[in-house]
């Protein structure tokens, strides 16, 4: 039994998950994990499924293309290889928010710094708050900061990058949000 990861993207509409899961079912695959999200008009879904030895991965790709192609959806299927998986170090969860005028290179500027410090992004969301107010663009990054990292140095570098990008930056331990809003 091997595992595959299937990703599907395209215009959102009812029935996408139904078609993918039906095809996986017919092919004898067991869905182990699934997640989907919507960005504006677009759907993106990911499925991790175990696939019986009796069916080749190439055959599964062909079957999915056959069903999804006519719907204008693209799919990508990859066999999951346990070798080479990134092993996360011990980390602490923090939340970074950036607030400021939209312009090219904001996400690139922040994420380059995160990558350089080995900070992993667990969730990233753009929240365009304030409607037409171009100054009110907010990005929320939930990140895992390695415990071994010099947090002061990282914080300083992040704030400095914020100044360069004309962004107000906050970096707070995730527990504060949990404490305030969740019972």
């Amino acid at each position, binding site marked *: 039994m091997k595992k595959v990861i299937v990703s599907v993207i395209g215009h959102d509409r009812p029935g996408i998950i139904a078609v993918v899961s039906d095809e996986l079912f017919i092919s004898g695959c067991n869905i182990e994990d699934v997640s989907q999200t919507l960005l504006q008009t677009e759907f993106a879904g990911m499925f991790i499924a175990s696939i019986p030895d009796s069916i080749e991965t190439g055959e599964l790709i062909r079957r999915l293309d056959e069903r999804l192609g006519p719907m204008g959806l693209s799919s990508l299927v990859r066999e999951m290889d346990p070798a080479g998986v990134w092993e996360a170090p011990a980390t602490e969860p923090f939340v970074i928010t950036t607030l400021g005028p939209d312009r090219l290179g904001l996400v690139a500027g922040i994420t380059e710094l995160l990558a350089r410090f080995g900070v992993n992004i667990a969730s990233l969301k753009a929240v365009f708050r304030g409607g037409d107010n171009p100054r009110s663009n907010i990005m929320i990054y939930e990140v895992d900061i390695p415990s071994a990292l010099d947090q002061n140095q990282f914080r300083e570098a992040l704030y400095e990058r914020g100044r360069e990008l004309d962004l107000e930056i906050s970096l707070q*331990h995730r527990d504060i949000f949990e404490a305030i809003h969740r019972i």
Partner: protein
Amino acid sequence: MLSDREVISTLEMLRHEHLDVRTVTLGISLFDCASDDIGRFTANVREKICRIASDLVGVCDQVAVRYGIPIVNKRIAVSPIAVAACSMNTGRMVDAAVTLDNAAREVGVDFIGGFTALVEKGFTSGDRALIEAIPEALASTERVCSSVNVASTRAGINMDAVYLMGKTIKRAAELTSDRDGVGCAKLCVFANIPEDIPFMAGAYLGVGEPDPVVNVGVSGPGVVKMALDRARAANPGLDLGELSEIIKHTSFKVTRVGELIGREVARLLGVTFGVVDLSLAPTPNVGDSVGEIFQSLGLSHIGVPGSTAALAMINDAVKKGGAFASSYVGGLSGAFIPVSEDLNIAESARKGFLTIEKLEAMTSVCSVGLDMVALAGDTSAETLAAIIADEMAIGVINRKTTAARLIPVPGKKAGEKAFFGGLLGEASIISARGENGSSNFIRLGGRIPAPVQSMTN
């Protein structure tokens, strides 16, 4: 994953609504410093405070940065000096106060509380020496705060102590007359003083408390006001029951912040976590005022008719939200209405909406009492004592804490302004009517017996 709303509303509270932890107060027992030799006692005190509290400010700053929540004040509360130094005379008591002041300066805290005596039923020699030392102690130190408990539901009201405190307040004002009597701003007279108050000037470490211990005072009048304003803007039809629910929710959030920060500071310092004090404590900043909450509830000014009912509702909702958020609630836990420390309340007093009588009435439904009330400099010790006695009676009969922090501003009259500076703010001097009408009553002295409410066993 966090929701957008959870992240954004937290940021709003921090950026625009003055969400903070008002004080982290480290309680340190001085009983193990006791000695009949003043040199030895003060050396022990200095050594212990500097040893236990050396990391307090650094740890608080570190935790504040980590969670993005400002910790506005870092303070120390010590055992009542009248007990810890009970063999000292008045002069030695002043030496003890100076030692506390120096230790506070050395570890970088802005106030240290515990120049305290508990005399609700009567005096020991240490109590008398300490109370006599208060005026000079407050005049010759910068950071020392003093409190005297003169009444309790169990003991009644020690009217000899009440009169003595009237005289002590007068003397403390005289000795700091060049600074509008600021000595009195660091002196609280209490009924039913809690043993774990983190807020000044009443903070001290009670006899039954652990050593050392971290107690936290949360704040958040600005957060409460903005939550009410937002809710009313979104739905102008909200009634008082629904608005009280909003205060409750907000108090829950603010308290959770306090508990998280307090526990983290305690953990890093390696000391016990004590309590969260759920008080709504204002500062002299716009948007950080208890008085403004009254306006958000439809009253033109704090002090107009309806204010006592509004305060009762606010105070109760704060407690209900806070009690759910933390199992270890203590200290004063209620709304403060300090006249000088809250711009809006000071303004209401200046305009005459807030009189001393109305303040007194309001203190029957909230924590603390006549807090930072500036009076004319020629107010007699007897009148001050009578005002204190009234305030103590409210506490004793209602089984709650009340306090009086009265400042007879030397050389100034009702209507003029007193300036205390910093967190203590400025206040319009309000008039206490009936001067000299209370002298004969106050001079009777003795102890008003404990009320029937005390017989609960």
